[in-house]
């Protein structure tokens, strides 16, 4: 069954450009653009940070080597053994794809680091103290306006999350957060996440999924929109960013900006003085999404939020699981440490813990899918209610738990919206509660099987256009049977019903031939009688 799922998953990612993250995207850039990207120190550091440990090692060894080195040197730096060889191969592939490691022109078999990349690294090593954080130029250095601590940061994060959540709510048609503004709506439509006419046109069926529709004049969620909703927040932000990279003339300046931002601390005051034209217009949009907050009083100052800081590096699945464990405060853990410890954790760090929990809890959902088709989702966000509502029947919503059940009709209504079975399964397993890791599947087999079976149900009937022949007179039984026999012989026959109805259906394309045949037969028989 697993193979079916993965095969389905591959086949179903309708937009190929939807796949892949930022680094895959860098791999697709041409030499000149990569050069421009590597002109920025933060981008280089960001790429370095992304590399696998072995690749990092290799890069650092080569940083100060200004000439090309033979490829074998690199092989020699790795211990012998098939495993190490494989790791080296992978590391080299990664470095080449990102164009960090390039062949020396005219010297086959020799490689070197990308010039710009190497010099940026050297510069950082030589002078790490110079602007430890990006975008500090032009600030007086007093850092009095920082929002890096306490309630200011919490307010900042809250506001950011609210903006992002508002957009997601708007996409699913919930009016809880109101309209996110014309510019955002326009953007959503241009990204294809929403559209006028909505999903109904695409799936060919009217949709009314219990989602409160705001009004006919507003755009409605599209098929891509539903796919988008089932992704996690970092993937979602990246989808937005990719849209920008396609839209603007210089994608590298978008990337540079993201890399820079990933080196910021949430809440530090930044100056927009050094931003180029593209970046400045981006900044306004970032503010709309909650990736940064522009200072109300000084428009040239802004504060990155953790949402923005995490766009590039996001959270790996393992990190998410770990965060999940922290956020839900696993009973399993409290079993080990004892309940009093759990209480201590809460009381001991009054500022930190609740805020962390809040940040993670509101962006993550931890789902337990039981073998009896019940779905329990640990979340405090009403957005997750809307997301789950796409494919489950919600039975009860408690402060930190959604109780729902998967039914045939709930899954079918999701199919009607264009959501695929594998997307649902993917969503359930991606957001599986850490406790589910203990069993051998994140989502029980019988649930995944059933979802796939339900999906299969929809593809069982094939429509063929046909023509109905009927109203043969009783005395024409011979004509009827001859015609049926003829159709059967030529494989035109779709349906037949004997006396007393005397009717049959053949392929529409053979209508003319059949009509001629019936006519001929009729005449022949009549002649025989006379």
């Amino acid at each position, binding site marked *: 069954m697993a193979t079916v799922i993965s095969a389905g998953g591959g086949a179903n990612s309708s937009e190929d450009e939807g796949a892949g993250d930022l680094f895959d995207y860098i791999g697709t850039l041409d030499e000149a653009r990569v050069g421009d990207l590597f002109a920025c120190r933060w981008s280089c550091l960001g790429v370095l940070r992304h590399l696998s440990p072995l690749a990092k090692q290799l890069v650092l060894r080569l940083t100060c080597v200004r000439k090309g080195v033979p490829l074998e040197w690199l092989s020699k730096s790795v211990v012998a053994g098939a495993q190490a060889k494989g790791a080296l191969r992978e590391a080299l592939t990664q470095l080449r794809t990102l164009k960090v490691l390039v062949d020396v022109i005219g010297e086959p078999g020799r490689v070197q680091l990308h010039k710009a990349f190497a010099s940026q690294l050297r510069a950082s090593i030589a002078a790490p103290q110079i602007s430890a954080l990006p975008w500090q130029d032009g600030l007086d250095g007093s850092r009095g306006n920082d929002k890096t601590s306490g309630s200011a940061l919490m307010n900042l994060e809250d506001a950011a999350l609210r903006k992002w959540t508002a957009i997601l709510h708007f996409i699913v048609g919930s009016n809880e957060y109101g309209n996110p503004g014309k510019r955002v709506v326009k953007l959503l439509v241009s990204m294809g996440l929403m559209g006028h006419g909505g999903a109904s046109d695409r799936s060919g069926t009217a949709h009314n999924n219990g989602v409160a529709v705001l009004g006919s004049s507003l755009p409605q969620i599209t098929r891509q929109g539903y796919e988008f909703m089932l992704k996690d927040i970092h993937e979602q932000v990246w989808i937005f960013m990719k849209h920008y990279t396609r839209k603007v003339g210089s994608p590298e300046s978008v990337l540079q900006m993201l890399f820079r931002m990933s080196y910021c601390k949430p809440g530090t005051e930044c100056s927009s003085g050094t931003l180029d034209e593209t970046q400045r217009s981006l900044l306004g949009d970032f503010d709309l999404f909650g990736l940064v907050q522009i200072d109300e009083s000084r428009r040239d100052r802004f504060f990155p939020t953790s949402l923005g800081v995490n766009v590039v590096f996001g959270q790996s699945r393992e990190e998410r699981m770990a965060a999940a464990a922290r956020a839900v405060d696993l009973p399993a853990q409290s079993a080990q440490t004892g309940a009093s410890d759990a209480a201590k954790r809460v009381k001991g760090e009054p500022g930190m813990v609740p805020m962390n929990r809040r940040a993670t809890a509101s962006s993550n959902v931890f789902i337990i899918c039981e073998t009896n088709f019940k779905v329990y989702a640990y979340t405090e966000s009403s957005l997750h209610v809307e997301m789950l509502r796409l494919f489950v029947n919600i039975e009860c919503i408690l402060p930190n738990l959604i109780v729902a059940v998967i039914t045939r009709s709930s899954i079918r209504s999701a199919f009607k919206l264009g959501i695929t079975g594998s997307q649902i399964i993917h969503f359930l397993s991606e957001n599986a509660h850490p406790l589910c890791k203990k069993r051998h599947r994140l989502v029980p087999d019988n649930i995944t099987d*059933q979802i796939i079976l339900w999906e299969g149900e929809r593809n069982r009937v094939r429509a063929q256009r046909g023509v109905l022949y009927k109203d043969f007179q009783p005395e024409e039984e011979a004509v009827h049977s001859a015609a049926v026999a003829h159709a059967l012989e030529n494989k035109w026959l779709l349906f037949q019903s004997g006396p007393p109805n005397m009717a049959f259906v053949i392929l529409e394309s053979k209508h003319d031939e059949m009509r001629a045949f019936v006519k001929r037969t009729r005449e022949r028989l009549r002649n025989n009688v006379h």
Partner: protein
Amino acid sequence: MGPKQADLLQAALAEAENVALQENNYLGEDFVTEDYDDKLDKSASAKIADRARKNTSVLASGVDFRKIMQLKEGHESRPIWVAPTGQIYLEASSPYFALATDFLVAIAEPESRPELIHHYKLTPYSLYAAVSVNLDTETILRTLERLSKVPIPPEVDTFVRRCTASHGKAKLVLKRNRLYVESPYPEVLKKLLEIRAIRQAQDQSIDARLRRLEARRMGQDAEGVGPGQSANSVVQSNDVRLLESAAVQEDRAAQATDFEELDKLLERRIENIDDIADDDEEDGGVGANDATAMAANDGGGSGKKRSAAEAGMKDVKSEPSAQRKVLSFEIRPEYIEQVKEAAMMADYPLMEEYDFKRDSRNPDLPINLRASTRVRAYQEKSLAKMFGNGRARSGIIVLPCGAGKTLTGITAACTVKKSCIIFCINSVGVEQWIRSIKMFTTLKDEHIRRFTSLSKDDLHESGATVLVTTYNMMSYSKGRSADGERVMQQVKNTEWGLIIMDEVHVVPAKMFRMALRHVKSHCKLGLTATLVREDGLIDDLNFLIGPKLYEANWQALTEQGFLAKVLCAEVWCPMTPEFFEEYLRPDTPAKRKQLLYVMNPNKFAICQMLLRYHVEKKDKVLVFSDDIPAILRYSTYLRIHHLYGDTTQWERERLLRRFRGGKNMLEGEKEINVLVISQVGDVGIDLPQANVIIQVSSHFGSRRQEAQRLGRILRPKPGEDFNVGWNAFFYTLISMDTSEMYFSNKRQQYLVDQGYTFKVIRNIKEIARASGIPYEELPIEKQREIQRDLRANKVSEALFEKSLEIANRQAAAKSRKAAAGRIAPTNKLMRSVLRKTGRLK
């Protein structure tokens, strides 16, 4: 009950004892058991349901409670959520899981218990059960509050208070073969006596009581008179006279416009009763401690270990203090249901408790568990609920099939040690119980008596007897043989310590009522594996027997190795084109459609393949089919023995012996490994050797049947290692794209809620080929032959159609009226038609 209905009932009862009960009941499940329910029954359950609805209406409806609820401090370490709808969700991963489970099982209905989150629901009945195991309102609320991540919603608070406040205040006690309602609260008795139905049932007027009191003073206490018949009949005729005068007085009282006067009258009555009742006081306030000890009794088990939950609940106010005077009034036995129902309606459900340890009037039964008998922890736990305060309570214990219900019942009998009557659903069950009693206990054979259509043993001279009988024998009312009548009289005159009712879920309420009218007992214990009925009549059991005392968790028992690990598979069998075409035709009658999917040639082939595979592995296979024509055909085609309603008792026993094999067989008999069997195999037949079930047809969407059938293979085989995957297999063959698929889903619901999963196998042919198991298509001539036969059976089809139409119309009207959800069709015609068409024997 109209004369027609009476006739019909009579006819039903006159049917062959074994089959009638079972097969009728499978109808009775999806179909309303109209024939069995007279008007009183109907209105009773309806009224009680109304009452329950009214109470339940205080609970919130709706879905989203985020706005009105907040998480409590430290919610992470608390294990449950309590929703304003009365639903409770429990984290199975919580360190307090075991404690919370014990508590929740006591106060709420388990809805589903899969792996990580369990779902419970508070219902009026579950709370009633909670009170009857001595949990009081405050304890329930306090414990809930402590366990819950969210504050207890006010709706739930009100609901719990409303359902529990008045519960447990009044009891129904049997003393010297007379029934009394007793309570330490005068105001409760007063309230009860204000109810007309109870006043009617009250045994004697004040005058009569006073006269009796006088009589007693004069030394002519009724106690001196033995339980002999003559003395009894004198008293009875006396009572009738007294009753008449009482009735006049009742009317007068009812007409009294001045309420105060009525009040005074009642007051006086209770005072008088008080005098009589003082010799009945014996409330000891026995702690819960010796309860568990008692359950362990002779079992040699570890009953002393008290679970955390019980420890946590020790602050339960157990019994009213000994100083408090217990008041009582007597009621006539024939009104017992009316009284119980009325009391239930008034929110004072009568608890039935039996202080068997102090009962010196009834002779002791010399019954003890053998030293070698092991009582398992969960059996002890369930009995601890029954004997919670040192007395025996009436109620129902729910244990999965194969988990040792019989031993639980026997241990209860060993605890009470008084005369015990056991109701089984058929004579096979009777023999099985007797075998078990002999195996598990030291009771001498002379104390064990049978009362069945074949053997009518007299009770033991000492009066202490274990009588094993069937529901039919007890409810049968006409034309008994002289022997039967004699034994029946003995039964009626005995004051039974305990009634054990096996497979309590299959028996129609009507039969219960009749049986219980004849048998007076101190305490009733119902045993069942699946307390579900599609017709919702389960609620009736609540006041006929008592609350559900305990329900075991299937998955937990499986993990502990007490139940076999069953692989449940739903095998999809594609319909052959010819069969499918006929199935799809709009002019194909419903009955034939049904036979078409049951007799689907691919099903034959797949069944044959599975049989070969499992027989090769030396497995014992039961093939289940509900359709008699299908049984015969499977039997002839696959060359296997069959057993169904028409099989004679002799042949039946011989087949079962041969299936059990080994020492069970008589000389010269050959062992068989496969048996195709009808619904008669669903309940009561104990075939511990079976470990594979292939279900080729079943009774529509019956959840209970599915669970019962699974139960046939749940008993773990001795000497098997539990860590090695599956050791039992449950296949259901489903014809693809037919209504079987819909029913199949419905049927599985109960088991799915118990944590079982059904694996769908779509491509069994390929799997078989890949693993080298021979797979043969059914020869085309055979296929045609089956189809021809199906078509030939026209007459019965027409009848079936007609009955279905009528039934559907009735059901539609019913659902319009009641709007009470799904009511499946049935009626007399349907029944008779089914009988004619061979679906019902």
